[in-house]
């Protein structure tokens, strides 16, 4: 028994050493970068890896980084936990990637955070959704994420729109309850206001009972993050034309703009400069990069371009060989990067939890499209 334990330990150490070789071996070959994306399955954003690749193609065409090309390896996990875990192991152990850039899987952060920690590798997701994306030492997404956005949406309704009675009708995914509570608390602290109605279990099914309850309670501003079609079709039926509805970034899609009936006041928070207006600061670069390759112009591809851009910028600042260790060190010690596509600068930093980007811009659904509101980024507590 004792012997077999020792043997296992020895084998494990050997395997680790080999993996270490793979990770550090190539200081002259291509710089390998990985990502885990949902390309198929329930949560699909196939444009993310394509957009990251487009940025790296541009860098490679200009000679790479210190003469080394970037090799980008994206794994599709189809939101399947097992595939996600396998993808992380494969990227880190077999491929020996130096970092993960532009991940967009809904399950990656929660499942793989420990792996990233033990491998000493950083992940810069394009789109972080899972609360673990914002509470892990080695992960720092480029998007504000659902919690900062919720605070911003509440702030928008109570301060920008000046509503006294603000209500929240939310679908809370398992594990994100604390994040939601904290986001609401943050809003209360900044504004000194309390929610009139807080409903955190809006699911599928007929939304009419919720809407009727909101009418009864006199909700003038409602934050909502669930299914779009039926909610607004029935809000229209119930005659809620005077209410301001604010949704979170997951609802900011062309399809949803089409689905919202005319005559309602429906806003959506956006994490980056709204993608529907390419003239906004920072969007020109993104539109050029994805446009040239025929990649869909969505908020997800914005995140992908930003994650790749930030990564390249940090990489360029590294003195000496580019390895997993030097990349991780560079991110932990980096200076904030101003990126015009978001509300506040991006920084990774040394902490145990990272949610560097804050604030949201707002768009309004009008005539089956999203119109960008003239106010800039709404950053709670900062105007």
């Amino acid at each position: 028994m004792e012997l077999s334990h020792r043997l296992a330990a020895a084998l494990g150490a050997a395997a680790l050493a080999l993996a270490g070789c793979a990770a550090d071996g190539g200081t002259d070959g291509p710089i390998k970068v990985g990502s885990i994306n949902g390309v198929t399955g329930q949560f699909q954003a196939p444009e993310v890896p394509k957009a990251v690749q487009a940025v790296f193609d541009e860098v490679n065409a200009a000679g790479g980084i210190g003469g080394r090309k970037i090799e980008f390896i994206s794994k599709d996990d189809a939101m399947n936990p097992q595939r996600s875990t396998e993808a992380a192991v494969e990227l880190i152990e077999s491929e020996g990637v130096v970092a993960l850039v532009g991940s967009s899987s809904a399950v990656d952060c929660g499942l793989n955070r420990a792996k990233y920690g033990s491998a000493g590798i950083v992940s810069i997701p394009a789109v972080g959704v899972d609360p673990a994306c914002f509470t892990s030492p080695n992960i720092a997404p480029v998007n504000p994420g659902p919690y900062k956005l919720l605070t911003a949406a509440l702030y928008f309704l109570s301060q920008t729109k000046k509503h006294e009675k603000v209500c929240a009708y939310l679908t809370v995914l398992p594990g994100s309850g604390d994040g939601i509570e904290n986001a609401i608390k943050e809003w209360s602290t900044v504004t000194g206001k309390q929610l009139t109605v807080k409903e955190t279990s809006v699911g599928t099914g007929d939304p009419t009972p919720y809407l009727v309850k909101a009418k009864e309670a006199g909700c003038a501003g409602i934050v909502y993050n669930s299914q779009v079609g039926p909610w607004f079709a029935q809000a229209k039926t119930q005659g809620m034309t005077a209410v301001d509805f604010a949704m979170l970034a997951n609802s900011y899609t062309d399809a949803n703009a089409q689905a919202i009936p005319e005559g309602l006041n429906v806003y959506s928070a956006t994490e980056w400069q709204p993608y529907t207006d390419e003239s906004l600061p920072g969007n020109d670069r993104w539109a050029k990069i994805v446009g040239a390759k025929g990649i869909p112009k969505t908020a997800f591809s914005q995140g992908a371009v930003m994650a790749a851009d930030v990564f390249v910028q940090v990489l360029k600042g590294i003195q000496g060989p580019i390895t997993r260790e030097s990349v991780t060190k560079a991110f932990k010690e980096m200076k904030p990067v101003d990126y015009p596509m978001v509300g506040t600068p991006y920084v990774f930093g040394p902490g145990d939890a990272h949610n560097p980007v804050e604030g949201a811009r707002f768009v309004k659904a009008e005539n089956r499209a999203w119109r960008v509101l003239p106010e800039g980024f709404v950053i709670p507590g900062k105007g």
Partner: protein
Amino acid sequence: MLNSLIAGLTSGGVYALLGLCVVLTYRLVAVVNFAMAATGAVGAYVMVSLIGVGVHGALALAAGVVAGAALSALVGAILVRWFGEHSERTKAAVTVALYVAVMAIGLRVFGSATTGTRRFPAPLDGPAFVLGDVVVPVSTLVSLAFAALITAGVGLLFSRTLLGLRLQALSERPTTAQVVGIAVPRLAMAVWAVIGGLSTLVIVLVAPRLGGDFATLGNLITTALAVAMVGAFRSLPMTLAGGLILGLLEGVAVSLSGLQADRGVVPFLVILVLLWWRSRNEVWDTAHTR
């Protein structure tokens, strides 16, 4: 509380319609069809896609119904041809497999919740009248009327017509029916096609209330099965009542803050209780016919 009850009741009609589709299929072809809502969702999406490219609404609806009918006939063909002599359980399992296949292909073709949300035409969503704080739209009355029509119409079909008799024979003793000269495969296929068309109509009618994307619509099968269970897969009037009860329960669950978080669970708890209540007088080993 009263408002919530009324609000819940307005969705009773659409829930009843979903349940009735399942019960109807079961009574006609003796299959618990897990692919029912997915089939209807394909038809409904064919319709909205056509409307999206400028086809007239009525024409698009007709095309959607035909598509739903064709897909359902395909499901029927698979079941009749390859699993005709198998047990109900096997047939149900086959429909589960087909449901998974239709959902996977449908998600690819019609998009997920983020990319595939569509506005379903709701010409009937204008207000009929106002009760308390609740605006009751015309569509609620239409759903209820449609559900009542199916309940009464199918009841009459079974009890009063030769076709009804043949359909019952087809459902209960397919082999015997064939022996006495009923063209079973052809009749079964026709029934599957009609069910597909009907499912499409029902999904189109419930979509403005219950779901605007393919996955949600296809997954309405869980709600449909729950409602069908109240009717024990047999009784159409009880299924109709089941839809109304489910709507009421949802209304109650929203109005009671303690129950809010468990809104999704309450209906199923009540269904369990109902099933227990219905079976309390039954004795083991008595012949359980459908």
